[in-house]
């Protein structure tokens, strides 16, 4: 959940999923929809997960292991379970558990921002197969930066401003004054809601008209924000 210094005003379904981000025993899937790209699981990795990870020893190549690790980060899906079962020659049930365990591990590493090999190696139990452990650690380190950027861009937020267009018109006449020359500004703001499902990113757009005074007031406000931002950045 977003534990910001101030509260956000989001009102969509993402809030329901956030309520599940508590400690749960491993092996329980916490998504409402299995095909959803984000699965909020607790940031713990348990012994059962490591047992499942040993199934990776059945992989035919390092690239196969890499492939499964990277795909699992996004979460469980029927397609992934089937392809993993096929690649490793295990049952679909075992494949599903493996993907979940991989996801728990990558989620853990991402959450606590484990950036050195020693930190990641320390999570594994003593009895874990050592070269598999090194391989998994290497894969996790390689992908951490990408996953972090992805997580940052996918985090919950209010609709994000994506595009801004403006035009300045000269009003030359109206029903109250037949001849005038008054500038006015039209601004179109295009916003994208990142919390809507991945297939349908809702783009909403609003066009506002600003008088010269309004624009001055806005610029005044924005200037104050900029000044305060530079104070914060300076700290």
């Amino acid at each position, binding site marked *: 959940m977003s534990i910001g210094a101030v509260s956000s005003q989001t009102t969509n379904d993402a809030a329901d999923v956030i309520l599940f981000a508590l400690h749960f025993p491993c092996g329980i899937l916490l998504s409402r929809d299995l095909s959803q790209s984000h699965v909020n699981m607790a940031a713990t990795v348990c012994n059962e997960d490591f047992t499942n990870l040993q199934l990776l020893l059945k992989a035919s190549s390092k690239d196969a292991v890499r492939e499964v690790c990277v795909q699992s980060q996004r979460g469980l899906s029927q397609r992934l379970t089937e392809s993993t079962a096929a690649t490793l020659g295990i049952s679909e049930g075992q494949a599903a558990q493996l993907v979940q365990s991989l996801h728990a591990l990558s989620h853990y590493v991402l959450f606590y921002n484990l950036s050195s090999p020693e930190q990641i190696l320390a999570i594994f139990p003593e009895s874990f197969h050592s070269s598999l452990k090194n391989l998994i650690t290497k894969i996790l380190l390689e992908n951490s930066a990408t996953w972090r950027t992805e997580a940052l861009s996918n985090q919950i937020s209010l609709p994000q401003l994506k595009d801004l267009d403006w035009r300045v018109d000269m009003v030359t006449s109206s029903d109250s004054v037949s001849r005038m*020359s008054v500038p006015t*500004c039209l601004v179109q703001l295009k916003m994208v809601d990142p919390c809507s499902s991945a297939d349908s990113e809702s783009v909403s757009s609003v066009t506002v008209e600003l*008088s010269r005074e309004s624009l001055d007031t806005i610029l005044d406000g924005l200037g104050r924000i900029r000044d305060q931002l530079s104070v914060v950045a300076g700290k």
Partner: protein
Amino acid sequence: MVQRAFQDSGLISWAEHYAALTRLAVRQTLMVNQLVDMEWKFGVTVGTSEIQKLGTVFLQLKLVVRKGNSTENVYMELTLPQFYNFLHEMERAKASMECFS
């Protein structure tokens, strides 16, 4: 020019109020989706469910737009680069407006 004409013809009080009356008439001009108010707040995202420790700045804006007789609130969030772009574009719009006066 018009004021002088009024003064010459002796309609002094009309001349005094002409400028104010024109300003009032201009203010009556139709505006579509007029921006009535802008509120903002910014803060730091300390952590999320995916990443425990963060320190990214966010800015939230609320625009109050007049639609007919009622107002509509539009909420949005901007990252720092988006904010600086917004500021830059508004400054360009202002410069454009100044050109015409």
